[in-house]
Each structure stands twice: as structure tokens, then as C-alpha cells.
């Protein structure tokens, strides 16, 4: 049969839907024709997707639905039904596993739904559909019979090695360029963390693939897609330490020369020095830990089965092995208050993580946190409207002693604590709030503006940017709270560039700014910073939309800039200078050579058209 699988938009850009790729592989192995539309990767409207689907003319359309992609999935499905009625619509994915009844009620276009993993059951279902047989023997299927929903019992794949490797070639817009290969080495997690729905979606039964099977998948991916990096997306990669070590040893032995990272979060108590060293040696660059809270009382109440001291030890082990440690935190866990969040921020600062991320609790149905919030607090938003990859944070929950506004405030305080500290420092030292602030950003980031206006309230912001800015900031100054905008017009000569920056620096000096924020990703860091630096009383380097704020005193900052001038760069600069001289000489030689090129006729521009005799004959 002809199957179309759709990954609706609304999820992180640049990610790939691994579940659909597994399904695609299973269907291809069963000799079906498969195509995957990764709508999330592009910017197609539901109508455009419907047109594409109509062209492909499938018999079955499967949608992978996450909580964040429910609404786009419904829109696409109904758009397809309007133009192409011949296909059966099937839904699957984590959201369906959690809330299939509600989904099917709203999505009348969907005839069937799948719960949990369906690598084995989906091909079985298609075969039954083709032969018009009964579905009762298809595991994990929800279907409608006499107006009622019937859900068959779920069945987990016992041997993951038997499942075919995911097929990415079925994705119609897939490009192997810079592909961060998503890898799953195991499924499920046995822990009872109260906020987590993995136990329902992937099951509490942990099942691992054999190391040989994983390595052969990586070998295949390297050969077939030329991958250089992969990401482990397991629910619990290091549950069995020996298996994780065996995997690392095999990776080292095979010399696949791949870099990888674990950003799906692993447990701090499931690490030891031998494992972290092996991971580093095998090419792992970064590990994320699910820390959730730094307040001991809250931490103990979420049933992670870890201690805060395990987290500290875990971070040190990762960093000692030479990898980056990343921490994930949740605000709004049952028992959380403004005080406990302050403890979390303090704990997080003490950990000296290489990166961190705060989020607000989304109470997924079926979890213990969902029941607690329902009992002790309030659920304010429909789960589908909770924020996912959005700048506008809204708390979906609140408690009697921790309101939604306080939760949102705590979130901003935690995420942008550096910016809050900058404001507090200024007030402490000068006895007033800053009035004149300049922001230097030559990139196209807009995130800092909204964070800035939240932290510094009514203080207007001046912006120094370049002509290459392509976002709407320059046209919408009011929206972004901008008072004055200084635009640098690029010059091709380095001397002219420097002169231009000096001109701006002198103008900024006259303005007597209280604080200057400098965007760390701004190119040409050295020239503007070095020139503008003396003009600022307080100078900060900002990065990741205000999340990281560094406050280097002038001398430290200069040292930082000088440290960027490593010998290699100096060597490069010298080489560029020498090459410049060579190229200038080459240009002159070229001019001389061109002077002797005297072939070719002069074009005659007649009344009819300019042309040569040869053209007329052609």
C-alpha cells in the first residue's frame, strides 16, 4: 500500500522525527511504498501540504502527534480531507498515547490511533486494512466500532535488535548535510519521577539493544549518510553502566571517529569516572543531567531516587573527564515556592554548569504531578497551549502559595539571573537605576529586547547594529522599546572600518551611557569592543538572548580579547597580509596579460537588435 507519514510543524526546527523514520523502515521492510513529509522542517501551509499529499495519492496517512503539534496536525488533516478524501488518517505519537480519547473527539478526520511504539503493529494494521480483516489482534490500536472507541492491549517490542534501522531517505526533503544522527540504544525507564510521562509513553520496562547492533547502525549511517555527529536520545542511556561502557569501548575499537552527545538527559547517579572517561575517549562532548530542582525538600519529593550530592558528583565527573555539563531544571514542581526556586538558582550557580535550561512544569496526564496539581493547585491552560519553543512564557499551573505570575517571574529570575544581577549591582553602586543603556548587536537576535524590557522595565534602549540586520527590529523600534538606533554601514577597507568605529565610539562617549551590553555573537568582536570599551561605566557581554551575562572589568576584558589572538590567528593574519601583497602583484600581471588579449569582434548595435552576423545565421 502507499503510505504517507507526516511530521506536523510546531516542534524544534532542525530536529528529525525519529519515530516516523523507524516506522518508514518497518513499512519498507514490509514492501509498502512510503514517503515522509517533514512539514516541521519547512514553512508549508496546511493547504500546500494537502496539495503535495494529493499529488502523492496515498492510501494511508499517518500523523506523528506531540502535544505541541496537536493543532497543526488537526489543521493539516482537515485540509487534506478537503482536497483528497481517499486516504485513511491515522494518528500516533506521545500525545496520542497520553490523550487519545480527547484527540479523536476533536479530530473527526482520524479513523485510527496508535498507542506507544508501533514499529510492529502499524505494518500489521496496514496488512489487515488491505485484506479488510478484523483489527482486534493489532496491539495498541484504537478504532471506532458502533460509535465507541475500542483500544486493544499494547505490546512492547521485546527484542529491539529485530527492528530495522530508521530510514531517513523516505523523508522527501531530507538532506544528509550536517546531519546530527539521532540514535536510540534503549527504550523505557524504570524510575518513578512524578513529573515524567516516559513510563507511560515508552513504558517502565527498560529494553536495550545489543552493542553490536548499535555499532552496525552507526557504521551504516556513516557509510550511507556520511555522518560525523550523533545524539543519543534514550530515555535512560546509562541505566546499565556495564552496557554503556561496552558501547564506548566498541566505539573506540571500531575507530568510527564520530563526535556525540547526550542532551536528552541522563541520571547523575548512573555515572562513574570510568564511564565518563570512556565516553570522552569515545567522542562524547557534552552530557545533560536532569537536575530539576536544587532545593533539597522539593528534590526529595519528586521521587527521582537520587540525592543532591549525586548531582554535584555527576557534574564534577563529567567536567573532570573533559566534557561539557548541562543541567535541566523545572520550576513549579509540587512543593515549589519562590524560596525553593531561589535555592535552586543558588545551587545551579554553585554547580558551575557549562549550560543550563529552566522550564515550567507541564503536568502531563497520567503522571503523579498531574494528580497533585489537580488536587493541590490549578491547571490553567489546555495542555496543547502550553509553551513549546516560544518566547512568550505562560505558566500552565499555579498553587495556593505559588501563583502563576510568581512562577513566571521565578522562571525569568532563574533563566536571566545574570541580567537581574547587573541591574541590582548598578543600583547598589550608584543608588539609582540605569537611565542610558546601549546594546551592541550586529547579529539578528531579537530575544534580548523582550528580556531586557522585562528586567529593566521602562528604561529605553539604544541599539548599535549593522546594515546587514535582516529582522524587523529596525522598522519596529517602538515594539522593541528602542530609543535610538545607530547603524554601521560596512566598509570594505579595514582602515575605513576602524575609522567608522572610532567615529561611533566618540559619539557614544558623548552620550555617557550607564551600561553597555555587548552581544557575544557579534562579529568583529575585537575592533568595536576595544574602541568602545573605555566609554562605558559598566560593560557586559551578553549571549543567548540575555541568558549569559559576563561582567568583565576593563583589564580582564582586554585580556579576554587578547587571548583570542592566539598564535594561529597571528600566523593567519601574517599569511593573509603576505598573500594580499602576492594577489596585488597578480592583479597587475593579470592587467598586463589582459592588455594583450585582442580577440573578439566589436558588437554592432543595429536598428533591429544588437547582434553579430553569426547570430543571424543561428
Amino acid at each position, binding site marked *: 500500500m502507499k503510505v504517507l507519514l507526516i511530521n506536523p510543524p510546531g516542534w524544534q526546527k532542525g530536529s528529525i522525527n525519529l519515530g516516523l523514520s523507524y516506522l518508514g523502515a518497518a513499512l519498507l521492510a514490509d514492501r509498502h511504498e512510503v514517503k515522509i513529509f*517533514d*512539514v516541521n*522542517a*519547512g*514553512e*508549508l501551509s496546511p493547504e*500546500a501540504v494537502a496539495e*503535495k499529499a494529493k499529488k502523492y495519492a496515498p492510501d494511508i496517512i499517518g500523523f506523528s502527534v506531540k502535544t505541541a503539534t496537536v493543532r497543526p496536525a488537526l489543521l493539516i488533516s482537515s485540509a487534506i480531507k478537503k482536497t483528497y478524501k481517499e486516504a485513511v488518517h491515522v494518528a500516533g505519537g506521545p500525545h496520542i498515547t497520553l490523550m487519545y480519547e480527547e484527540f479523536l473527539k476533536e479530530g473527526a478526520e482520524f479513523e485510527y490511533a496508535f498507542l506507544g511504539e508501533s514499529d510492529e503493529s502499524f505494518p500489521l494494521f496496514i496488512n489487515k486494512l488491505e485484506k479488510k480483516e478484523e483489527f482486534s489482534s493489532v496491539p495498541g490500536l484504537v478504532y471506532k466500532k458502533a460509535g465507541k472507541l475500542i483500544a486493544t492491549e499494547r505490546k512492547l517490542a521485546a527484542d529491539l535488535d529485530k527492528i530495522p534501522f530508521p530510514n531517513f531517505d523516505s523523508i*522527501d*526533503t*531530507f*538532506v*544528509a*548535510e550536517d546531519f546530527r544522527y539521532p540514535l536510540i540504544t534503549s527504550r523505557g525507564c524504570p524510575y518513578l519521577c512524578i513529573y515524567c510521562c516516559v513510563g507511560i509513553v515508552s513504558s517502565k520496562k527498560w529494553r536495550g539493544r545489543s552493542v553490536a547492533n548499535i555499532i552496525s547502525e552507526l557504521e551504516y549511517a556513516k557509510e550511507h*549518510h*556520511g555522518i560525523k555527529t550523533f545524539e543519543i536520545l534514550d530515555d535512560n542511556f546509562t541505566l546499565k553502566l556495564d552496557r554503556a561502557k561496552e558501547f564506548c569501548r566498541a566505539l573506540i575499537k571500531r575507530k568510527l571517529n564520530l563526535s556525540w552527545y547526550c542532551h536528552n538527559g541522563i541520571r547523575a547517579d548512573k555515572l562513574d569516572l570510568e564511564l565518563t572517561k570512556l565516553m570522552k575517549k569515545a567522542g562524547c562532548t557534552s552530557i545533560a543531567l536532569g537536575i530539576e530542582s536544587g532545593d533539597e525538600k522539593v528534590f526529595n519529593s519528586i521521587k527521582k531516587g537520587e540525592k543532591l550530592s549525586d548531582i554535584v558528583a555527576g557534574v564534577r565527573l563529567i567536567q573532570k573527564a573533559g566534557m561539557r555539563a548541562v543541567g535541566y531544571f523545572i520550576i513549579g514542581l509540587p512543593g515549589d515556592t519562590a524560596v525553593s526556586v531561589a535555592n535552586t538558582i543558588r545551587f545551579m550557580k554553585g554547580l558551575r554548569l557549562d549550560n543550563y535550561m529552566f522550564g515550567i512544569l507541564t503536568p502531563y496526564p497520567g503522571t503523579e504531578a498531574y494528580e497533585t496539581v489537580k488536587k493541590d493547585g490549578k491547571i490553567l491552560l489546555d495542555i496543547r497551549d502550553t509553551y513549546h519553543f516560544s518566547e512568550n512564557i505562560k505558566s500552565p499551573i499555579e498553587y495556593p502559595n505559588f501563583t502563576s505570575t510568581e512562577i513566571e517571574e521565578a522562571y525569568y529570575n532563574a533563566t536571566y539571573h545574570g541580567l537581574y544581577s547587573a541591574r541590582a549591582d548598578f543600583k547598589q553602586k550608584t543608588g539609582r537605576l540605569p537611565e542610558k543603556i546601549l546594546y551592541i548587536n550586529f547579529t*539578528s537576535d531579537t530575544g534580548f529586547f523582550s528580556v531586557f524590557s522585562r528586567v529593566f522595565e521602562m528604561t529605553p534602549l539604544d541599539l548599535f547594529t549593522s546594515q*546587514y540586520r*535582516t529582522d524587523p527590529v529596525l522598522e519596529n523600534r517602538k515594539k522593541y522599546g528602542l530609543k535610538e538606533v545607530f547603524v554601521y554601514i560596512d566598509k*570594505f*577597507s*579595514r582602515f575605513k572600518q576602524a575609522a567608522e568605529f572610532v567615529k561611533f565610539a566618540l559619539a557614544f562617549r558623548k552620550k555617557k551611557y550607564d551600561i553597555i551590553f555587548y552581544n557575544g555573537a557579534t562579529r568583529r568582536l575585537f575592533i568595536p569592543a576595544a574602541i568602545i570599551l573605555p566609554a562605558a561605566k559598566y560593560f557586559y557581554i551578553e549571549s543567548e538572548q540575555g541568558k549569559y551575562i559576563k561582567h568583565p572589568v576593563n583589564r580582564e576584558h582586554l585580556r579576554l580579547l587578547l587571548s583570542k589572538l592566539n598564535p594561529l590567528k597571528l600566523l*593567519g593574519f601574517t*599569511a*593573509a597580509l603576505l*598573500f*594580499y601583497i602576492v*594577489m*596585488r602583484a*597578480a*592583479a*597587475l600581471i*593579470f*592587467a598586463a596579460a*589582459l*592588455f*594583450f*588579449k*585582442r*580577440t*573578439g*569582434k*566589436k*558588437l*554592432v*548595435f543595429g*536598428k*533591429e*537588435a*544588437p*547582434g*553579430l552576423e*553569426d*547570430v543571424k545565421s*543561428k
Partner: protein
Amino acid sequence: MKLLHLCDHYRPLGGAEKLLFDTLSLLEESGITNVMVMNDYPENRYSGRRKEYIVKGLDAQPLTSNFISYLCAGWRAKKKLREIIKNEKPDLIHVHNIQNPFVIHEALKETPVVRAVHDPRLYCFTDWRLLPGDKKICPFPLGYKCITEGCIGNELLKFSLTGRKALPRYFNYRLHKKVDSIILESKAMLACALQNDYKSGQLEYLPNFTSIEPLEKVVERNRRLMNPGENSIVFVGRASYEKGIAQLLEAVKLLTVSYKLYLITGGPELPAVYGKIKEYGLEKNVFVLGPLSYEETKNYYSLADVVVVPSVWIESFCLVGIEAMANAKPVVAFRTGGIPDWLAERETGLLAGVGDIPELASNIETILSNKDRAKQYGLAGYKRVSERFCKEVYLARLLEIYKKAVEKRRRK
């Protein structure tokens, strides 16, 4: 058949980009798979309509004096393209507006290559083939005149941006002699290519095309939108010297009839355009509408009594002309480049000598003062476009060119 397209801009920008998107849709409708490889301009995005690669430095140019960084960028793009070709295994590579010799060199290695030319950068060191000073069209081939006429000599000496770009551009010019087929949009471009020593066997003449609506629909829209009490002139194009917007403003100054001029434009000389409008006191007659999409522009074509194409360079084709004709409108233009290919004088519009502003003004006035003749020209234009510049003709010829290129490479 699987085609790999290399392009610089992948967004609706001008005629070349409109042609690119229309061509892609046309090819896909006929069952051909397109894979796009584009330069990493921030405005270039994945559309999700087809397989798309964004490659850093695909159209790298020596913008700064650091030539090493340019060479590295060019080399990296070449390496990336090699990987893409290896993965995609296309049957043919269609190069659109890429000027990077590294990329062309890589493309030429194993796969047949077809190059579409939309401007004179293939054989001219300046971008528009206009002589410095009086800005007249340059009649000379690439060679010593580029030095003696002052186009490039000084620039090479100063090692300015134009001077720096000259070296890779010359390599590009040489490399293109190995390209299997070069598509030229007009006879004038064909003449330019022959003048610059490209072999006639590799040159293919393929005029542009535009989508055509049924005549009844066009006539109905024109009837609805045209204002009988107003003389409307429409200009669509970039606000830059070569498109002749300044000449048009000078010409309308000479008109003796009342008129309204709508400028659908944007570009580097827009401030100068506003300045000229003010200087000539044309504020009440001239309206600058900014750049518009084709759907919006269509309404202005319908409103127009005449569409003016005052280009003063060797216009490679000018899609605006056939768009106006597809909307049953007469066209007044300068006799240059590819314009006479589609504009049949005294049948679908009127032509003036390049830069002859009084003649241009007189032609505009002739059309404005004789609406019946204007209508007759418009209908003849519609017929001409339907017969010669429609998608069916274009697709058949394009596929023939592809086939020929594959065949040529096979023989090699």
C-alpha cells in the same frame, strides 16, 4: 530525471528568481525531481517544497582584502558540493546565477552542466556592461578594451572590490567554455556570448516564459480595474541606473497629456528616485509603490494604459515585458538587448533608440492618446505571448536542451 540546481538567491527578488521558481514548478509538474543548492544568504530559507541544501560560500566573492579567507570559503563550498553531488547523484546540474569558479569547477567534473545566463557577468568585469563615464553600452569583447576604456585597469591597480572580483570572474569566464550548454534568453545575449569566444555549439537560445490566464479573465480584470478617465503608466523593475528609471522620469516630464505614473520598484537608487520626483515637481503624478509580489503587480498591469521598459543596458530579456503582454497591455521600451525579441514594433508596442528620451516620451504619448490602438497592441501582445512565451514552448525546449547536454557529455 533528477536535477541539481545551483542558485544564489532563493526567494522572490527579481525576474531571474521568478523564472527560477516558475521553472522549478514546471519541471516538477512534468515529473522531474529538483534538488536545490543555494548560497547561505540569511534570507534564503528551506521552503519544504523540495530537497534543499544551504551551502556556505556557494557564491563566495572576495569582498574583503583577505584573499586567503575567500579562497578557503570557495574551497569549502566546492568540497560541500562534491559531497552533495556524491549523495544525490543528479543526472544534470543546472547552474543559475552562481559566479564562484570553485563551484563551477566542481560541477563540471562528472555531471553534465547547463548554465542559465541572466546578466553579462559571465564576460564582463563590471556588472552591467556599461562604459564608465557616459554609461553607454559597451560594444567591446572582454580583453584589452576593459583596460583602455577604464573599466578595470584602475580597479586592479587599487585592488578595489571590482578589481578583486576580476580574477575569479576571469576564471569563471574560462571555465564556462567547458560547460555543456549555456542558455541565453535573447539573441542579443547570444551575440554577446559569441563575441566573447564561446563556441556556437554550446549556446542555446531559450526565451523566458510567463504564466498565461485565459483572455476572457484578463480582459474582465482589465475592464474592472482600468480607469477610463486616467492615463496610467506603469513601470516594474529595480530602482537602479541600468533599468532606466531616471530616463523614464525625464520622459514623463515631457508629456503634454495628463497622466499618473506608478513605480513598482525598490533598490539602491530609490532615494535618488524620490529626489528626482521632487526636483521635477512630479509629486502629484508619480507614485512609488515599492516592490510588490506578482499577484499584486498584476492588478497594476490591468490598471495600466501602457507599461514602460526603459532599460538602458543590454537587457538580457526582461520578464516584465512579457508579463505586461500576458495582461494584454502595450509596451513602450528602448531598443536594446533582448527587448526586440518579444516586442514587435508597431504590433505590440513601440520602441525608441536607447537613451532617446524625447522619442520615448513621444511613444508613451502616442499610446496614451490613442486608446483603441493601445487595446489593439495589448491583444496582439497577449497573442504573441501565448504563442511564443508560454510554458509549453519553454518546457519542451528546456527538456530538449537538457537531453542535448546529457548526450554531449556522454559522447565526451
